């Protein structure tokens, strides 16, 4: 735990915000707490795809984190789709502010896709918020169910009540 304190101290001294590193860490962890339907993966070895839609605030660190992670026995890869068609193979999609309503609608309806939103009025299954200087999230269980996903109780218990705002 000394690592945590050193980390906080270092960030504080050098004015770096940990907001996006924390969000990147969440994105790669969510996979372990969500169950996808069988049909979402082509084969038992098929990797889990995390897609970043719109502006990418993470850069290489998301790729590095995904490379070091395994969930449900699957590797993780990060894609940055440039067309709506390319969204088809995604399992987790991160959509920051500025993604068009059309794309958001498409992703919300896509089966087997965990939509993670961040900013903006439109909320996906998981919506990041900043509360008391920490990154937290709100989970929309109904939206998850509509996409065919099962969210574990541990992740649900960490989510804030809907209504908590930025």
């Amino acid at each position, binding site marked *: 735990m000394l*690592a945590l304190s050193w980390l906080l*101290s270092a960030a*504080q001294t050098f*004015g770096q915000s940990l907001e996006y*590193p924390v969000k990147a860490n969440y994105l790669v962890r969510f996979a372990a707490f969500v169950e996808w339907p069988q049909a979402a993966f082509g084969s038992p070895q098929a990797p889990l795809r995390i897609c970043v839609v719109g502006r990418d605030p993470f850069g290489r660190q998301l790729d590095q984190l995904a490379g070091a992670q395994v969930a449900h026995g699957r590797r993780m890869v990060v894609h940055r789709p440039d067309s709506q068609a390319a969204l088809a193979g995604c399992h987790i999609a991160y959509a920051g502010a500025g993604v068009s309503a059309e794309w958001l609608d498409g992703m919300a309806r896509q089966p087997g896709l965990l939509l993670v939103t961040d900013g903006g009025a439109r909320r996906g299954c998981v919506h990041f918020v900043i509360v*008391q200087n*920490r990154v937290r999230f709100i989970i929309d269980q109904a939206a998850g169910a509509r996409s065919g996903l099962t969210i574990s109780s541990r992740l649900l218990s960490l989510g804030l009540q809907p209504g908590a705002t930025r």
Partner: protein
Amino acid sequence: MGRAGLIMRTWVSAAALAALWAWAGAAQALPEDEAVVTAQGQGGVDGPEDLARLSLEELAQVEITSVSLRGEPLAGAAAAVFVITPEDIRRSGALSLPEVLRLAPNLNVQRINASDYAITARGFNGYEQSNKLLVLIDGRSVYSTLHSGVFWEHLGVVLEDVERIEVISGPGGALYGANAVNSVINIITKSALDTRGPALSATYGTDDKVLSLRHGGSLGDHGAWRVWATGFERENTRLVTGASARDESDGGRLGFRADWAGGRDNWTVQGDVYEHQVASGEPMSTADVSGGFLQLGWSRDLQNGGRLEGHIYRALDWREFPLSNERRAQTDVRLQHTVGFGAHTIVWGGNYRWNKSRLTSAIGVGLNPVERDITLGALFAQDQWAITPNLTLTLGAKLEDDSFTGTAFLPSARVAWRPGGNDLIWAAVSRAVRTPSRIERDLSFPGFLEPANFQSEELTAYEVGYRARPNDRLNFSVSLFHNEYDKLRTVSLQPGGLPPLNFTNRGGGSAWGGEAWGSLEVNPRWRLKAGASYLDKDLSSPPPPADITGLVSQGFDPDNQLFLASEAQLTDRVEFDLRLRRQGDLQPAGLDAYTEADARLSYRLRPEVELALVGSNLLNDYHVETGEPVRRRQIARSVSLQLRAGF
């Protein structure tokens, strides 16, 4: 027999209740079969990659920006700061705040008797001498203006709901208020948003019995509350002759906390009431301390990324001792603004405290006047300038005003440099003062001891430190200091050697030393920790009649301390922790060095329920920790069984 019988029955029924509750599965069970596997991190390159080592719950606790939350200094890295985490507290088996503070290698903790402790950093330790320490609990200052020290027997928190304790050795910097001279201890409790649900912890031991209960829940969509109760009993210590010191103590505390985090404004309300029966220092008599507080805290995140925060609190404390009674009322208001301008982060604000103390005594010696209002005000400003991404300069200044001595200007400068990716070099120079206490200004025994115009003690501190994380498994920190003191407390006769005595400021000199600590992860299931401190004092005062005490106010301090700890996960459910500490010879005059060990074996029954067997002070039947011969008590070896559920 009646009292002991009642206590036994209470404990047996509490234990039965606890066991029933635990087995009924009232606690929220975490699923044990998580599908996540995280590969070992690839050698720490940059800060953010350390996040990969945190659990999901820990990620939710990471504060993301340099805007500090509860009085935490922005340039916190440029200081000798040791952070005690909830995990450290849990694995230590400690049952009270002073015992938890033994984990900090930069502190010297001396247990005096069943309820009293003397705690300092960098010297001046002793029951009457430890007066250069600022202790804050959620931003509330808890040192006493009666003697400028901390009455640890008044304090108590539910240790399981502590979020972290920051132990800073050295002057804390511009953001900390009065009495931050040799050290600042910043105790922060968890937000109610993080303590929903029931929780219980029960300890039954040969020395200590503690029961803590907490329950929390949500308040609408944005808030949460918790209420808690904690009670303790402590057995007596022994006099050096072997007879009982008759200082057994007990007490109870009730409190609550509520937090709202909706929108841009965050609110916190908390309070508690307590009553403890404690060692009175006199044989055959006990003393009572009691009181309570109510506090409102507020913060707002501003659009430009800045932050506004403040608090207001009122605290009342009573001390009823055989020979004197004190009633103290405090009201404190603080407001602080943090704002960024390019590479500069500026924090500025003010603090005002009204302190009304009334001490009545049964004998000829007392305080004159009986009742005194002390006001402590401060205006502070700090600029943290990121000159380059790897070099930060923090300039701070505090204008501290107290009703005894007026205004003091206290500047400080800190620089932090990050030469490579994994290490940090820092240096600091600061000025601090320790303002007079009521005893130093008002103690009066006409003809024998009379008040004179006691001034503030002064410190100029020069510090330097190095912190490194060479790889994923090892991290350590070293700090060195050179303190120059002036106007230290002495007791003088009149010129010519006649009474009355006065408290005067004729002491001075310097002290130098250092602290170091580190942690090594031998393998994922075994961690070793070590700590050490060194102190060399060169303090003096003129001979009588200028000082008849030989500068006793410099305290009794060990020249060195050593700490070793091993934390091991033996199986998935069993943990074994061992802690060794050595306090060197107490200088001046005093006490030989002692070495002691604490051990803890714990078994996790369910994800939220843990049972632990804790042994404290295992190496000797009895040992003494403190210098003054009159106050020495023998602390015994003890064992206890601890149950923790829901926390």
